[in-house]
């Protein structure tokens, strides 16, 4: 399996910026709120996928991967969305490839966290 993820942009900040339209004046920064949800949600989904792989529950892994792809896509976290998509569409969602993809996701998330935390800091110092 050849993974060419490194060529894709990790986070498209322009996607995040579109949510400024939904900002209500006087309220806390909306994008920061979304980032906080995401940063909380991802480790939870990782846990869920890891447990599902251990227990050989393909469906649960598939579902969590689906959520991860959706959330990542929503926030312009492109690379994560792509890998999550691959995991979601595996024939065996709890096999060896799944484990491999989960590791890729975890690595990628380290990179993403830095970028998102920086953005978070910029918006809400």
């Amino acid at each position, binding site marked *: 399996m050849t993974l060419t993820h490194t060529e894709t942009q990790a986070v498209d900040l322009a996607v995040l910026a579109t949510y400024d*339209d939904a900002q*209500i004046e006087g309220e806390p920064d909306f994008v920061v709120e*979304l980032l906080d949800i995401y940063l909380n*949600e991802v480790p939870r989904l990782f846990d869920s996928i890891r447990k599902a792989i251990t227990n050989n529950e393909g469906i649960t892994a598939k579902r969590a991967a689906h959520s991860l792809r959706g*959330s990542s896509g929503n926030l312009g976290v492109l690379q994560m969305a792509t890998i999550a998509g691959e995991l979601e569409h595996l024939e065996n969602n709890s096999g060896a490839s799944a484990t491999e993809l989960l590791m890729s996701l975890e690595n990628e998330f380290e990179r993403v966290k830095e970028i998102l935390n920086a953005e978070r800091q910029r918006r809400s110092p």
Partner: protein
Amino acid sequence: MRILIAEDDPISCRILTANLTKWGHEVVVTRNGHDAWQALHVQNAPSLAILDRVMPDVDGIEICRQLREEKTDSPIHVILLTSLNRREDLLEGLEAGADDYLTKPLDAHELRARLQAAGRILELQESLRQRVRELEAAIAERKIAEEALRNLSLTDQLTGLYNYRGFINLAEHHAKTARRSKHRSLLIYADMDGLKEINDRLGHRAGSTAIAAVGEILRNTFRECDIIARLGGDEFAVLVTNMQEPETAKVLERLRRNVHAYNEASNHEFTIALSIGAVEIDHEHAWSIEDQMARADEVMYREKREKKGHEKAQEAQGKGP
């Protein structure tokens, strides 16, 4: 608008809610299919639902399908959310009864445009419902008016004669104006014999023809100034006014002759026979039409009974040795 969201993904859900709220909509948030279904079935439920296609319990397509199975005059406008930008999913959603779909990641401008389209459709539906309600109310009102008119009517539709109400009204009026006049009146009560047999044997259409024929015979027998009525069913009444005396026998004979002539004309599939009760009324005393009708009725029944007795006697004779 009141909009229901069913979305298990917290980020999608938050983005949707934030946008809709900002655009002035009232949002009901649910996180699974079951709660969504409940929220769509309370009083004053949202008329628009944005349903995620994939949810852990009941997915958006299934909700859609179940919503469409319900018979309602105010269908919920359903927008399906899908991140699977695949043609089959889209078709499956639309076939399940979704009105529209949006793909994730959501484009706020597209969402807004779709909501406007949905709003127009819902408004149109509401104005149609309003129109239907108005029409139904108008029809109901019309029916009441027609019923009232029928009750007010003085004539019998089938024969064109007066009906019971018309007869009583006119006869009472006559009773008042004729008081102390030197002329007498004759009240005739006529009951068709064998209408039931005609109905049973030839059908109700023939029965109606027979009733109409009796009406015609009465009209030909009496004068314009007499009050001729079908009281209902097979019962008729005539108030012959301003009689020179003693004409009763002559009048009844004329009636019998006309019935006979009708039957002789032989192109009818039935024979008409009347039992008749007639009472003379003088106007020296006050009288009520009801009392006189009761008298005439009694005479008529006596005749009918005698006729039946006579028929039986004839039958018995015929069967004799």
